[in-house]
């Protein structure tokens, strides 16, 4: 693993932490005051800061630090997490996400926004409440003691920002030389007096090791005073009885010696003193402290006997002797440990019980069971293999049925079981790739916040069923259409607070995003309580844009559906927010590309509801198997509205090549699939075949003529592009039970290829009745 891979992992982790952060803040916004929620939020920011520091991502560290400081105030109950406070924090979470993305992709962030939030966060940490209309809320406890303010707006700060908690990021480098250099002779000499307390051993420190370590600082001679060692009968095996006096010759200064005792400082008496008449420094560069500094103030009891110093000619071997003596001491400790080992089992059991207890307490917060991370490629491979298995099983069934008409029951039973097992395996494998829609929903809450801010609206996003699972391939493609629809809902749908108040509505608008499973599909609903669709305006716009004739007689539902037509926009002027050249037609098309459908229902004055119905996976498709000119084709079931047997009286010719079919008083163009795909040179007689009424992009309907319907079936999708090449009119391929390849029809492409008429004409057919 190299640095880049670790960095990649860091950014992945950031993404998870950011999601955790946002969901925690949203929970708090809903009144959740569980300390574990606050802790999880704190940990998320803390963790990002820690990793960012290791990579020297100073902007990120600086912002995360300010954020963390404010969160710590909440964690320690110094700051009440009111909705106003959380509003600032949610925005800070957005900035943190921006900074993370900028650090990864090298983009830039909105400096003014991040600086502004740093100020807001700092103000919160110092007990200043956000100036908001809701000042009537319970007065939060002020932050205790005005801590020194961190450097103002350190977002684009000096490379190594320091702050009140002393956090200093040290960029991480693997090139560091781990070796230490050896000390040489002729240096200042220090006298170290060191007397451990028994606590030193209890914390896993060891005098032996400290003395060994001291040999690395410089040349030393050592004396062990064992006067305090009692007789065996009085010996406390866990006591500490030795005191060492060490003289160290080093040019590394007193700090180097102190560093050795860094971890022992609290549990020993330590005195480090420069012996003044010692040789002068060789290098002379370093300034050495001339005054002995007592290391442990509490150790200055004054009742210690004078230090005996016995200098020996060969310091190293003397040190070894001391080490041996020290080892005795640590062996004594170990003896005690051994004696106590009898109770080990009980102790271990107690520790385990304690751990289990702690685990149980935190279980609710820890969430669902254990997970592993798997490379998506491996899952895809598995899904592919299971697809093959499904096909193979179907082939096997078919050949057994064909060859064994007498029905050997054991074979049939085995086959049935195999079929059931393959189905279960398929479902389980699909479930591996299934993920909750939560991350996408969470992203939407940010979009609502941003657009509400930009338009001065007050909006509450309510999400339901965010744990509803759907295939990752679907989730990935869901974000874009959803984003657009949310933008629309906030920008066009929900009224301004003033208008809402005037209308007698709640000042705060509500946008509700719901996900649920329904009959093997996922249903996503986006509802707002805004103004609803202004049908008069929509109608006028459609007439102005030549989309419908001025005298068209449309039902309310048909008018609502006009917004899905290409190039349609209800916004009077193109705003920054939703006028990005993307209309609802694009939304509809991307939903359809997913094998889904979208519907709208609107109630003027009460809001609109968009309903999307999507397949749970893109790897399997519900299709209608049809025959066209001797070929077997699969038509995605989602595209088919209804099937019908055309009667001669319903067919109308329209020029040499075009035919229409009248369905319930409206006309629909007939498309001969066999002709479009060049399976045959002349059009078949519609009366001999079956018409599949399909809905294509732009909402237009077409009647696809096929020769016969074989039945409905779930098919495993095999990419044509990946295995062969793109074929116009064909979306993908599949393998049927008899082993033959069947092509899956690309309904939109077929309709597009057949399109001789303009969209205007198409709508007028629908409107003609």
């Amino acid at each position: 693993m190299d640095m880049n891979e670790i960095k990649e992992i860091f950014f992945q982790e950031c993404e998870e932490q950011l999601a955790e952060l946002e969901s925690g803040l949203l929970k708090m916004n809903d009144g959740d005051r569980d300390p574990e929620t606050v802790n999880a939020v704190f940990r998320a920011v803390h963790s990002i800061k820690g990793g960012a520091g290791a990579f020297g991502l100073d902007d990120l560290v600086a912002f995360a630090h300010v954020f963390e400081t404010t969160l710590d105030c909440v964690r320690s109950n110094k700051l009440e997490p009111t909705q106003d406070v959380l509003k600032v924090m949610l925005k800070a979470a957005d900035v943190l996400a921006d900074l993370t993305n900028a650090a990864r992709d090298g983009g830039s962030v909105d400096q003014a926004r991040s600086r502004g939030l740093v100020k807001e966060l700092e103000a919160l940490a110092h007990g200043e409440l956000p100036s908001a209309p809701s000042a009537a809320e319970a007065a939060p406890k002020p932050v205790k003691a005005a801590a020194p303010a961190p450097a103002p707006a350190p977002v684009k700060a000096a490379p190594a920002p320091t702050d009140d908690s002393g956090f200093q990021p040290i960029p991480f480098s693997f090139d560091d030389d781990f070796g230490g250099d050896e000390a040489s002779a002729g240096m200042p000499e220090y006298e170290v007096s060191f007397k451990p307390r028994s606590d030193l051993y209890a914390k896993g420190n060891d005098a032996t090791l400290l003395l060994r370590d001291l040999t690395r600082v410089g040349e030393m001679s050592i004396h062990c005073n064992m006067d305090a060692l009692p007789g065996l009968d009085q010996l406390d095996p866990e006591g500490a009885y030795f005191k060492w006096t060490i003289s160290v010759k080093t040019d590394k200064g007193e700090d180097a010696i102190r560093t050795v005792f860094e971890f022992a400082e609290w549990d020993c008496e330590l005195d480090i003193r420069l012996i003044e008449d010692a040789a002068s420094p060789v290098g002379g560069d370093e300034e050495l402290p001339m005054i002995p500094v007592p290391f442990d103030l509490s150790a200055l009891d004054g009742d210690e006997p004078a230090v005996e110093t016995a200098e020996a000619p060969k310091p190293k071997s003397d040190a070894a002797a001391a080490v041996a003596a020290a080892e005795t001491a640590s062996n004594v400790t170990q003896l005690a440990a051994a004696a106590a080992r009898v109770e080990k089992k009980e102790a271990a059991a107690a520790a385990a019980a304690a751990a289990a207890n702690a685990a149980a307490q935190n279980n609710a917060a820890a969430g669902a069971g254990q997970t592993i991370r798997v490379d998506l490629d491996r899952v895809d491979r598995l899904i592919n293999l299971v697809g093959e298995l499904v096909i193979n099983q179907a082939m096997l069934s078919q050949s057994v049925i064909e060859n064994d008409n007498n029905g050997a029951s054991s074979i049939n039973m085995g086959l049935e079981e195999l079929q059931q097992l393959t189905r279960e395996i398929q479902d389980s494998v699909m479930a591996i790739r299934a993920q909750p829609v939560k991350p996408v929903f969470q992203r939407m809450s940010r979009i609502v916040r941003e657009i509400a801010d930009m338009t001065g609206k007050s909006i509450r996003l309510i999400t339901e069923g965010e744990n509803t699972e759907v295939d990752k391939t679907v989730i990935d493609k869901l974000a874009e259409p959803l984003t657009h629809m949310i933008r629309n809902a906030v920008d066009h749908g929900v009224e301004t607070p003033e208008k809402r108040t005037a209308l007698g509505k709640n000042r705060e608008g509500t946008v509700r995003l719901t996900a649920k499973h329904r009959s093997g599909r996922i249903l996503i609903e986006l509802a707002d309580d805004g103004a609803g669709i202004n049908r008069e305006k929509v109608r006028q716009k459609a007439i102005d844009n030549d989309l419908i004739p001025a005298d068209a007689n449309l039902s309310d539902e048909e008018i609502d559906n006009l917004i899905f037509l290409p190039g349609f926009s209800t916004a009077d002027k193109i705003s920054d927010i939703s006028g990005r050249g993307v209309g609802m037609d694009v939304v509809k098309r991307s939903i359809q590309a997913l094998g889904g459908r979208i519907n709208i229902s609107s109630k003027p004055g009460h809001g609109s509801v968009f309903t999307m119905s999507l397949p749970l996976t893109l790897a399997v498709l519900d299709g209608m198997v049809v025959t066209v000119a001797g070929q077997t084709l699969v038509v995605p079931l989602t595209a088919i509205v209804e099937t019908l047997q055309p009667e001669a009286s319903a067919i109308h010719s329209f020029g040499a090549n075009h035919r229409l079919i009248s369905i319930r008083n409206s006309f629909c163009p007939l498309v001969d699939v066999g002709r479009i795909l060049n399976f045959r040179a002349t059009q078949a007689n519609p009366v001999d075949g079956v018409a599949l009424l399909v809905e294509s992009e732009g909402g237009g309907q077409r009647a696809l003529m096929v020769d016969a319907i074989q039945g409905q079936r779930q098919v495993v999708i095999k990419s044509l592009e990946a295995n062969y090449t793109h074929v116009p009119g064909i979306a993908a391929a599949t393998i049927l039970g008899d082993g033959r390849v069947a092509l899956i029809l690309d309904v939109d492409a077929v309709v597009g290829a057949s399109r001789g008429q303009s969209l205007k004409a198409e709508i007028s057919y629908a409107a003609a009745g």
Partner: protein
Amino acid sequence: MKKKVLTVDDSRTIRNMLLVTLNNAGFETIQAEDGVEGLEVLEEANPDVIVTDINMPRLDGFGFIEGVRRNDRYRAIPILVLTTESDAEKKNRARQAGATGWIVKPFDPAKLIDAIERVTA
């Protein structure tokens, strides 16, 4: 024989860094993601030294250190705390729990290795 280090940290990033740093320095590394898992793997891992974070879900560093020290077999094992926290009160709490030493994150690999060597035999 290679010295064995048990690292306990909930951040994948830090775990990976520790893994690379420690392996490069010739240690054998065993990792746990939080205090609960740390205690679970302790017996099997039988480490020479433990490096643990403080802020962790389920069981934090303080609880983990206490848990380790409660087990007689591990009462003398050195435990280094590696954390971004640097305030004296928390340091003190970790000491009370039985931590051997304290290293402030983000760590300098040389200092970390130095600290580990300092507390292990």
